[in-house]
């Protein structure tokens, strides 16, 4: 398309609002051992957590920024100006009535009506770094499912928590997982007992609402043998003048025959650095599926991974990225095959608008002596404007016979013919463009659970609003 970018001009001001900050606990700006001690003191961490944090800090300081392969934009993060911990000083809430009024208003602006949530199994909303709202439907609790904040998880369920915590993503995995290990707060801990199938998706909303404040939630989900669970995470954030950092770590453990589905809709403000490490471990016959949708942020670097450790384990990543002016969506997937007959599937779709840049970075690894492993990777990129950019950087290693790996990628633009055809039938150029983009991602969006696909479609429509002129 030749239209200049008034074209698909995304209105970033929607969701651009915040309320007076009332933080009781604040670790101040900058990162030092003192900061870590302060966080541990406030959170009343057990000793092993305090040591873990200090180890994370040491590793973080030792590791260089990965700019030899990643965007130089990372150098714009001023780690000394970031506040690494603050909490509203309120205990986690159990019922909707107890939620402060201004927070409720925030949710309303996000378009998540109270009513909708009643249909959801549990809501865990994160306002700044502590969970201020968490509601687990009685039925889920009765099934023995644990759904709490990570702090509560490590204190009240150490026997399960400690066994898996940081086992899927070690402290030193990368610079930002080390940072998270040092200062983590918030996030969810979920344990699903053997054979329990959680019917409704568990859901959490995250928001940042303090300038220069980075959010470092830590989520650990364990699905015991034969169980099934779906977790959803959605993010929006108000806009600030100085860069904000979000660096989460999410670990999933699917034991024998279990299924975990993890859904993310990321819509951070366009000044947020979103550097997230997500990895799942799938035992025999287990399945880990990441559904990842990135719409906001200044720079997102996120490559959900699955380690298929048991026979017949399955891994899947479905990813949608939308990059507009000033945005770089550097997303992808990693599939590590570590047992026979493991299969993985990656489908990635990206849309670059204006001067936006979308990058797919992938890794598929099939080591020696494995039999009948299969990987399928498909990456499609759509370019809207002449100044848009897209990149694809996969890395595939296959050893030995008996495995099949295929990778395919294509880059295209919305065809002038398509737009012309729709205009002939009375649609405006903007409507035609919006329809084309929706068609491009439709087969992926359809894979989202109902509630989310509706929400996602709304989000995409919102993004395309006031677009082509």
């Amino acid at each position: 398309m030749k239209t200049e970018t008034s074209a698909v001009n995304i209105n970033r001001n929607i969701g651009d609002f915040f309320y007076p900050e009332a933080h009781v606990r604040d670790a101040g700006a900058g990162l030092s051992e003192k900061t870590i001690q302060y966080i541990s003191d406030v959170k009343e961490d057990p000793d092993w957590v305090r040591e873990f944090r200090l180890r994370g800090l040491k590793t973080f300081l030792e590791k260089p920024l990965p700019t030899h392969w990643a965007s130089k934009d990372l150098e714009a993060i001023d780690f000394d100006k970031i506040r690494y911990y603050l909490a509203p000083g309120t205990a986690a809430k159990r019922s909707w009535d107890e939620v402060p009024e201004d927070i409720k208003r925030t949710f309303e602006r996000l378009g998540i009506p109270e009513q909708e949530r009643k249909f959801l199994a549990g809501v865990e909303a994160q306002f700044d770094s502590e969970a201020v709202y968490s509601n687990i439907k009685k039925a889920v609790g009765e099934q023995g499912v644990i759904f709490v904040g990570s702090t509560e998880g490590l204190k009240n369920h150490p026997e399960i928590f400690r066994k898996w915590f940081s086992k899927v993503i070690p402290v030193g995995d990368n610079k930002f997982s080390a940072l998270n290990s040092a200062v983590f707060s918030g996030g969810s801990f979920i344990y699903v007992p053997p054979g329990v199938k959680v019917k409704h998706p568990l859901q959490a909303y995250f928001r940042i609402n303090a300038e220069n404040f980075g959010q470092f939630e830590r989520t650990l989900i364990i699905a015991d043998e034969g169980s099934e669970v779906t977790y959803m995470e959605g993010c929006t954030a108000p806009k600030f003048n100085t860069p904000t950092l979000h660096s989460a770590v999410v670990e999933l453990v699917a034991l024998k025959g279990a299924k975990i589905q993890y859904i993310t809709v990321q819509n951070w403000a366009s000044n947020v650095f979103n550097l997230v490490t997500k990895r799942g471990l799938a035992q025999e016959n287990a399945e880990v599926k990441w559904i990842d949708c990135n719409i906001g942020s200044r720079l997102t670097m996120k490559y959900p991974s699955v380690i298929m450790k048991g026979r017949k384990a399955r891994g899947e990543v479905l990813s949608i990225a939308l990059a507009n002016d000033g945005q770089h969506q550097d997303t992808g997937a990693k599939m590590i095959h570590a047992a026979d007959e493991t299969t993985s599937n990656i489908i990635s779709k990206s849309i670059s608008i204006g001067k936006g840049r979308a990058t797919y970075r992938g890794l598929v690894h099939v080591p020696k002596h494995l039999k009948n492993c299969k990987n399928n990777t498909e990456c499609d990129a759509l370019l809207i404007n002449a100044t848009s950019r897209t990149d694809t950087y996969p890395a595939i290693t296959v050893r030995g016979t008996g495995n099949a790996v295929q990778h395919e990628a294509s880059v295209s633009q919305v065809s002038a013919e398509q737009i012309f055809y729709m205009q002939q039938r009375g649609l405006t150029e903007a409507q035609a463009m919006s329809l084309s983009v929706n068609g491009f991602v439709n087969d992926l969006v359809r894979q989202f659970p109902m509630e989310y696909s509706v929400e996602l479609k709304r989000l995409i429509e919102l993004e395309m609003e006031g677009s082509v002129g």
Partner: protein
Amino acid sequence: MRHDSIVLDEAIESGSTNVPRAILSGPTRSGNFPDWFHDQQAAAWKQFQALPNPTRKDQAWRFSNVGVLDLAPFKLGGALPDKERNAILEQSRGLDQVAARLIFAGDQLIERDVVSDQLKKRGVIFQPLERAIVEHRELFRKHFMSQPAILGSAKFAALHQALVSSGTFLYVPRGVEIELPIEIFHWLHGENASVFPHLLLVTDELAKVTVIESFRSLDQQAPGFACGVNDLITGPGAKVTYICAQDWGSNVVALQMNTTIVDHDASAMSLNLHLGGKYSRFESLSRLIGEGGRSDLLAISVANGAQEFDARTLQDHVSPHTASDLLYKNALDARARTTFGGLIRVEPHAHFTDAYQKVRNLLLSDDSEANSMPGLEILADNVRCTHGATSGQIDKDELFYLRARGIPIPVAQRLIVSGFLNEVIQRLDHEAIADHLRRLVDDKFANG
């Protein structure tokens, strides 16, 4: 075709440094080159020393076994006894019919069959480097090492420039079509010997030429080092076909940096056949700088034993309305490793680009390893860019079909692999060269 012995003797004298010395002692000013060339060599040497050694952490060297790149044992120069020289001449068998031929042994020109008088009269220049430097200074200087090595081997391109002592300069003027291929041989001889093969091919508007370069070792077991550069400048509307048939001895470490410039309405096709060497890295950059340009990049690797082949490519679409098509196929046996790192880059404003990239790995053993990194960087819209990478093994049904017809497993396997590779060779559309390449592949299968 005429044997040109006068030039031959000159060349031998100019290149005769009979006392071998270490590569790492750097360039000397003892050759017959003009001062400006020596100055360039000295500058390149400084650059070589200043640039860091590659590590696996460099994206351009990811998966690559950089440990083999220790240059300390390798030497420059050395005598060529008559017996060896005769053996090389005897074994320099390639195509039956060629327009001209150069044979280099240890970077010394040992035989030269020049182009016909008719082609000479029309302005075709086919000379060893050291003569072109003097006789066609302006043209040579304009193009020699004019393309920076941007695919990881800047250090080794500098090394090449510092130590290059001979090579080929081929210039095809406007409208001249050379029907028969031009053939060039580069031989390594002696223990720990090194060569720095160079080819500079410049074609003017509407010219047409095919060049085949063969790289071989006299002693199959002798360790050696090769560090070559070839620059192919394809003028407007010109058609260049370049074939590299690499069959170094089994203990050779080889690096080759290729740059192809494709001007408007020009067409460049390259085919790289990799058979020999312990470690062989080939960097191939194709820059499409004019509308209507087209570049075909083809490669075949047959890897066995503990061989490692490392291919890095860049299809750089600078101008709108350009096309490129890459097809790389690897057949891997035993403990062999291959790496493919390729990128299609569509520069801003290079609209209407049509680019394709495909790498296919056929794994024949449990210990072989294929790494693929097919990449895209698209900075313009209105393009069609696709890439694909597959890794798999011989289809059991195909094998069964052949066995059911009484063909033993090893033969059936070889047939299937040949068929797999043949798709690439056929793309050349040149029967004589295709036959020659198929023979080389068959020889490799036969000799293990």
